[in-house]
């Protein structure tokens, strides 16, 4: 592993919903005590199902939201402690690509305006001569510069989103399920483009996804999250999982090969509400290996430093 670009230290985020003069607010721990590092040039995948806190983590890393506790350092600078002005300056070094290509572009802005925004936001003049180059980098024709988002397909919009993220040559790009709302054929295009860009520009990616198959294809290291906490970090894509949840995720991923048909062993049990987590391991309610111990105490992320897992009964 190379020198860390991002260091995440015991990061937590609590959300409150509802509440008023008389109503008690409902509290949810979206991210619980997460510590991670992302090396320079690394592609770190974060995988988990809906509500596991992976998108919150992505936003915390960029400090689009403020953490309840913990620190994030970017290239040695603690961004969770930066002043708004300093943070704004810092933002040119990190960018984000969003899940929904439809709502991530202002419907009233042309592509040229969309791509000029990173410069305007940083208070810099936009060099218009860079426009064709920026579009070409993501595989879009220069003629599209005056188009509006609604004239583009989903894949094209996502390319624009990527071009916007790359406009100021950032070091880190956070990819928040960039292909989740696209067709598989387009998803593959975008993944190929992202891989290509990373190779050419030496980018560091934090790649958020629910698709373990995709993450295993695309990433160097994989963080598995369940209900706000990291349950396992796979040091590379071929390591066998040790956490029962990672195992279940892997089992749920069907290979496009009828020859490898196998019996489906789905998880049973219900996911606990994030607003009312039971004591102990959050996965215990669905875990085939769960013991009373699991239901009482919360397992810490431990074991091998290179392949930590949070489980009392790892595989």
């Amino acid at each position, binding site marked *: 592993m190379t020198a860390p670009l991002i260091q995440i230290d015991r990061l937590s985020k609590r959300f409150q919903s*509802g509440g008023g*003069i*008389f*109503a008690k607010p409902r509290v949810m721990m979206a991210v619980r005590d997460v510590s991670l590092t992302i090396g320079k040039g690394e592609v770190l995948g974060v995988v988990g199902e809906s509500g596991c806190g992976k998108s919150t983590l992505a936003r915390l890393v960029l400090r689009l939201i403020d953490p309840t506790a913990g620190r994030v350092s970017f290239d040695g600078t603690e961004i969770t402690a930066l002043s708004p002005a300093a943070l704004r300056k810092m933002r040119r070094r990190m960018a984000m690509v969003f899940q929904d290509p439809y709502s991530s572009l202002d419907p009233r802005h042309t592509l040229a305006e969309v791509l000029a925004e990173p410069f305007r936001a940083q208070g810099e003049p936009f060099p218009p001569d860079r426009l064709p180059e920026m579009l070409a980098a993501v595989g879009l024709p220069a003629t599209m510069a005056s188009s509006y988002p609604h004239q583009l397909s989903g894949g094209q919009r996502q390319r624009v989103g990527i071009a916007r993220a790359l406009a100021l040559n950032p070091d880190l790009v956070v990819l928040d399920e960039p292909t989740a709302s696209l067709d598989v054929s387009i998803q593959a295009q975008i993944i190929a483009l992202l891989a290509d860009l990373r190779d050419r520009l030496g980018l560091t990616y934090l790649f958020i996804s629910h698709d373990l198959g995709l993450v295993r294809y695309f990433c160097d290291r994989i963080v598995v999250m369940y209900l706000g906490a990291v349950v396992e970090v796979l040091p590379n894509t071929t390591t066998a999982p040790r956490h029962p949840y990672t195992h279940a995720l892997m089992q749920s991923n069907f290979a496009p090969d009828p020859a490898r048909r196998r019996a489906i062993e789905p998880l049973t049990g219900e996911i606990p509400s994030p607003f009312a987590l039971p004591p102990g391991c959050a996965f215990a309610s669905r875990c085939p290996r769960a013991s009373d111990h699991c239901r009482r105490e919360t397992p810490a992320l431990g074991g091998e430093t290179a392949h930590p897992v949070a489980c009392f009964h790892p595989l």
Partner: protein
Amino acid sequence: MLPWLIKRLLMLVPVFLAVSVVIFSILHFIPGDPIDNLLKIGSSPEARAEMEVRYGLDKPLAVQYSIWLGNVVQGDLGTAIVARRPVADLIAQALPHSLRLGGLALLFSTVVGVLLGVVAALNRDRWPDRAIMGGVLVGSTMPSFWLGLILILVFSVSLGWFPVSGARGWQSLVLPVLTIGLGGTALVARITRVSMIEAAGRDFVTLLHAKGLSPLRIQLGHVLRHALIPVVTILALRIGWILGGAVTVEVVFARPGLGTLLIKSLSQHDYPVVQACLLMLAMAVMLGTLLGDIMQALMDPRVRAALS
């Protein structure tokens, strides 16, 4: 839901206080003085001062307010300065007329509006839809006083079916109810139609068809039920609107009611009466919002869940 209801009722207290402050203070910006109406011409400043003391107008505004509020809470709305009788009496005279007119107009607009909205939605983009929505649009764009006059011209003067004015017997209610009701009908029909069309496009409706339910059962048993939620909510919210909006119609038909009482007292600067009328309407508005919330909770389990 009961704890929610109690909380919701408690929430009305600060709202009521805020509203009462506004109502009380705004009237003191109106130029003119009710005392002028009472004083003998050329009476001495002493007589004037005495009169002010008598009606409590000599004290600072904040003190006047707290006295007034204290009395209101005890059910004492004060004495009308110009009309010289307990405000509660005046309100008691006017309110039943307003409630009768408003209630019937509400009933009329709901029944007719929902009916028209349903027919229009079921015939979406075909001629019955266009005819109904066109008619409803025209109906809602006529100034109510003008509509009232035209109705008088046609039904009272030419045909002689209904009395021209007043509030005596059911006949005198027909034209005013119609005049107010038409505007409300337009609103209800439009919301019903839009909500029906919206609800009909929801996924679960497709599934109902896939279950083999008859279209009529789907439309009336499921789609309409959904469409009625916004209709009922908005109608409840607009109770105060309908009561107060009857002003013009009450004037045109020379009907007694809160509206006419308010207008009259406003022009006479009879503060206690104006305050009481506005307070009544504000209460109606507040109760309307409460009613709207309750209706919504009764009709939609999701809302109910959010409340408890």
